[in-house]
């Protein structure tokens, strides 16, 4: 008799949420608020900071944190694409999502248009002009592909909130027709 597989949960110490962001842009502002709010809600969150000293490759520790998280939140800000750490991390996150174990990826567009992320326009265009000079073509191609994929995922756009759009335009109300009333008569 072996333990049913199903009772095995995720490894101890695994995170609920992995936060990917550009430290220079949002470390002290938005991402800090978001991280605090996550922790206050009892969500185990891991935040990586691209400013920490590191080698060329993503460390095993970081890789494990990504793999074991249920959700990866990627905060896209204007400077995201000018950090190769961020871009490498994004590639890993999406690979995790697409691999068999998969996971949820939730992009947040912080003062940036999702289509700029998708097509690497606007501030991302400048960053990529620079990237193309400095890094090999294969790597840059991988980054572009990752941004295109991430920009297509359904996520959260701050500009919508600021402009006062109703955020969940697709939230429908439940009508009475579908509520069940069960009556019990005792006779």
């Amino acid at each position: 008799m072996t333990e049913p597989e199903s009772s095995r949960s995720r490894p101890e110490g695994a995170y609920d949420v992995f936060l990917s962001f550009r430290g220079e842009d949002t470390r002290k502002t938005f991402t800090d608020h978001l991280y605090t709010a996550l922790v206050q809600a009892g969500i185990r969150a891991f935040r990586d900071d691209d400013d920490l000293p590191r080698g060329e490759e993503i460390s095993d520790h970081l890789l494990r944190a990504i793999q074991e998280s249920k959700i990866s939140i990627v905060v896209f800000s204007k400077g995201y694409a000018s950090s190769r750490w961020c871009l490498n991390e994004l590639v890993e996150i999406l690979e995790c999502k697409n691999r068999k174990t998969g996971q949820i990826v939730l992009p947040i567009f912080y003062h940036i248009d999702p289509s700029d992320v998708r097509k690497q326009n606007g501030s991302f265009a400048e960053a990529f002009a620079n990237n193309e000079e400095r890094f090999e073509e294969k790597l840059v191609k991988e980054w572009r592909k990752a941004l295109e994929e991430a920009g297509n995922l359904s996520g959260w756009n701050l500009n919508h909130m600021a402009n006062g759009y109703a955020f969940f335009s697709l939230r429908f109300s439940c009508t009475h027709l579908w509520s069940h009333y069960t009556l019990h008569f005792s006779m």
Partner: protein
Amino acid sequence: MSRHEAKFIKEIIKDVLNKLDPKYFYVPEHLVGMDRLAHNIFDFLSTATDHVRIVGIHGMPGIGKTTIAKVVFNQLCYGFEGSCFLSNINETSKQFNGLALLQRQLLHDILKQDAANINCDDRGKVLIKERLRRKRVVVVADDVAHQDQLKALMGERSWFGPGSIVIITTRDSNLLREADQTYPIKELTRDQSLRLFSWHAFKDTKPAEAYIELSKDAVDYCGGLPLALEVIGACLYGKSKDRWKSEIDNLSRIPENNIQGKLLISFDALDGELQNAFLDIACFFTDVEKEYVAKVLGARSCYNPEVVLETLCERSLIKVFGEMVTMHDLLREMGREVVRKASPKQPGERTRIWNQEDAWNVLDQQKVRAQCIHVAMRIF
């Protein structure tokens, strides 16, 4: 931080909490003979592909199809964009607009928001196709009995996004023609049967010394069926040898393939109040909140409803998962049959009426007698 940002973060947290909500199902601690099958299915589904894969699990009632599906679902559900376990499809689809209710659940569980009003299942089909075809999902269709049910929920593979997985459990292997892989569930071997039986009759891996022969006899009458082994085992737990002998004697009189008859032995062993509570649950309260069930049972009997529910649980006649009271469909059918048998022709003479049509007829023709103590109606 601006007001917008604060609100923005609040919404994100809500979304994250929603997505983190535990989706896995409770499965019994004592699974016997299921590990390998669950493993095989999981292995087959683990290879990465962009195809939508359909897996079928079939076998007779009480053999453990739903349990296997839950084990596999638990392993898979976190790896997908969305997941949904549609339980008891056959029972739910008998309700008024039942298929539309199931479609609604499918959309809701995956999109995490209330779907638009679905007033007929054709509308539901369109919505599922539109909204889910880009989502990589895992969907379990549990206890499917008709082609229509499959057509309403998963008409074509293209309704779900690339890499999605559909698991179907059914008694009827003919419904699995579309499946990429089907897994028949076989009866447990004698050794496995004895082990599962012992978990319930002795809370141990093997029978108590003095009961070995009696246990083997009892197991032989259960036909390798996990549900029967569990219910009969739980029924005999803590009973004297004489009682064992008389129950085994009862079992021996029931034809081999009459599973319901065998399960009835456990019902007959209950005292009157517990029988009533069991019948109430079988007729009205499967998949209903425990608190509500306890309230109604408490008003009807002088027993403490908590104790009643606990005793029925110990006998494996009901299960309490989280806050919900539920019952295996074979046991529910057995209970309803007991009520039906009291007056096969005239619903008004029965102690309970659970079916909408019977209820209307009886009320309409004022044929309710004093015996009819419970009527449940769903008003839409």
